[in-house]
């Protein structure tokens, strides 16, 4: 039986304490709301910004000019562009510099070398849009700022379910307190709820199959917000369009733009058209915008390397500084242990497995989802993506909007809702079930989901037949997931994650079936045509009367 903690109440409940969640909590508290933030691990070092970032998408009028048109065009043509609602992007442009200045004033060095410095992810003779900064301690600093504003942070308390009332409005959430010997259910009533659980990792088989947590973005982000939003009736968008990162092989990390080198073949010849020698101003954009480069070269028998040979000593120092702020001190330690010297050695890069980022919950520019009282921040969003900057801008805005709407909403008792009893039943079943022949552990479920997604909802080959049979397989895994058993708080948490992943996998497959055309990496071998009628149209999915309903909506231009 699951233990129940005394229910809590607040104006704004924030699910997830990464950069976006902390920014949401800070903004809501500044608006005078009482705020509870539920975090799976510890906000001081959790999420994809755990040990830092070194670049953020930023528009500064005094640097880029008063008219942001050129900046916007550059950003929308970059690796984060393509499937964004442009009203979100235009709002972003008006906000990001304020957030950057805010962070600077809180002690996150946003111009560590004196002036605003834009380098990397850039084309020759084009506007540079990525601001370099020193973010290694961004999480402890944002945690301190949230606490200063009176935010209650519940660490080791992952968010699991949204509680809605009869009218379908969000009135709170169910979390699980993992601080004790056994998990305990924590119900929190809230006038509005902000989802900020990040991107979704662990959906596809990683490049090191035996090391599931060797992922580019934080592997603790496992789709809790997306799965809960869908169950609560929120509309999801762009789940069909695959997205993947690339980087060092097999030490999987984000931050390829922090490297200062040239993508080259084994012969040292540059592969892309942009640079012929390492430059810190540009990096090598080829890996960002020729998304198929690594796979295509591999198929042609060509490994691809990051070749830094000829780099100036001071640029190498700059790159090391960047990597240490990008959360890659572990990678630097590993290079040292291995004796890798970038003056003489080049490191092989490859394409990573897909993740969900910029594919997820549909929200408007106020971060409102289609469920009243429910807000989505940053990497939860399916219609906007700007990574760290997205977390700063839409984290903050989601919290502000949630606090404003909380003023107009009355508090309802979330603990009295039927959802809470369903959660209690689910948790008790996982806890009380004996490990046995019919009771899989979380890792079996997670691995099974990854296998099906990798083969039946792949990057290279998608078809109605593969997707429809893949859907059946995922549904069978979902049934088996209902029989999972755990051993302690830790594996209980992983069981809930595996369940959410199986749910999110189903949504991706259903949306991929809906898009009967090839577009980008959504490679439908049964519909090879890219239909211009679908330009600027997004696939959506939502639950109605317990059934998934897919549809289409236009991109906001």
């Amino acid at each position, binding site marked *: 039986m699951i233990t129940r903690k005394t229910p809590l109440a607040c104006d704004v409940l924030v699910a997830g304490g990464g950069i976006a969640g902390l920014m949401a909590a800070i903004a809501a508290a500044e608006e005078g709301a009482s705020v509870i933030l539920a975090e799976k691990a510890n906000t001081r070092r959790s999420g994809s910004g755990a040990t830092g970032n070194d670049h953020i998408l930023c528009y500064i009028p005094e640097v880029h000019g008063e008219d942001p048109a050129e900046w916007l065009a550059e950003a929308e043509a970059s690796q984060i562009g393509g499937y964004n609602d442009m009203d979100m992007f235009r709002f972003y442009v008006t906000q990001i510099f304020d957030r950057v200045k805010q962070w600077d004033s809180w002690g996150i060095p946003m111009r560590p070398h004196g002036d605003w410095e834009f380098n990397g992810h850039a084309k020759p003779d084009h506007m540079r849009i990525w601001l370099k900064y020193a973010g290694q301690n961004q999480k402890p600093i944002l945690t301190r700022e949230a606490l200063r504003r009176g935010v209650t942070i519940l660490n080791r308390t992952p968010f699991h379910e949204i509680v809605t009332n009869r009218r379908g409005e969000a009135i709170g959430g169910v979390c699980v307190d993992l601080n004790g010997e056994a998990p305990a259910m924590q119900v929190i009533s809230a006038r509005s709820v902000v989802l900020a659980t990040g991107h979704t990792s662990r959906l596809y088989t990683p490049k090191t199959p035996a*090391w599931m947590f060797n992922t580019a973005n934080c592997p603790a982000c496992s789709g809790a917000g997306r799965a809960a939003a869908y169950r609560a009736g929120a509309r999801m968008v762009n789940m069909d369009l695959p997205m993947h990162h690339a980087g060092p092989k097999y030490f999987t990390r984000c931050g390829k733009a922090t490297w200062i080198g040239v993508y080259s073949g084994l012969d040292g010849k540059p592969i892309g058209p942009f640079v012929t020698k390492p430059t810190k101003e540009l990096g090598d954009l080829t890996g960002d915008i020729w998304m198929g480069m690594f796979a295509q070269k591999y198929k042609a028998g060509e490994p691809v390397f990051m070749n830094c040979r000829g780099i100036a000593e001071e640029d190498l120092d700059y790159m090391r500084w960047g990597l240490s702020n990008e959360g890659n001190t572990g990678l630097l330690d590993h290079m040292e242990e291995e004796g890798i010297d970038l003056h003489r050695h080049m490191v092989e890069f490859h394409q990573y497995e897909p993740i969900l980022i910029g594919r997820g919950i549909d929200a408007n520019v106020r971060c409102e989802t289609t469920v009243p009282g429910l807000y989505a921040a940053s990497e939860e969003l399916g219609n906007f993506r700007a990574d760290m900057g997205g977390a700063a801008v839409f984290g903050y805005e989601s919290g502000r909007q949630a606090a404003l709407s909380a003023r107009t909403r009355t508090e309802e008792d979330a603990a009295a809702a039927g959802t809470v009893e369903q959660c209690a039943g689910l948790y008790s079943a996982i806890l009380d079930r004996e490990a046995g022949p019919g009771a899989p552990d979380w890792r079996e479920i997670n691995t099974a989901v990854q296998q099906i997604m990798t083969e039946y909802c792949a990057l290279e080959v998608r078809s109605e037949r593969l997707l429809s049979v893949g859907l059946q397989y995922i549904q069978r895994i979902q049934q088996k997931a209902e029989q999972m058993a755990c051993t302690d708080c830790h594996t209980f948490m992983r069981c809930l994650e595996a369940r959410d992943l199986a749910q999110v996998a189903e949504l991706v497959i259903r949306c991929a079936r809906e898009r009967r055309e090839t577009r980008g990496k959504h490679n439908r071998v049964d519909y090879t045509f890219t239909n211009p009628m679908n330009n600027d149209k997004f696939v959506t999915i939502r639950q109605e009367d317990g059934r998934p309903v897919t549809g289409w909506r236009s991109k906001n231009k």
Partner: protein
Amino acid sequence: MPPVIDKTKCTGCRTCAAICPLDVFGRQSAGIRVPEIRYPDECWHCNACVLDCPAQAIRLRFPVPTMLLYTDAPAISDG
């Protein structure tokens, strides 16, 4: 990618177990000074424990399958 703790340096402050984003350390038994590492294969090699250990007692051990692949770099040529 498990952290390895130098027992002679560790003061038992538990910072590492408290801040690990993946709960690699898991639940700690009472009365033990050096933290246990219960889920070593769930490490994300984020290095948070290494950075935040006040005694500088932690290093990561990188499993062989995650090693970087590298080779000699020829000079970059346009031709």
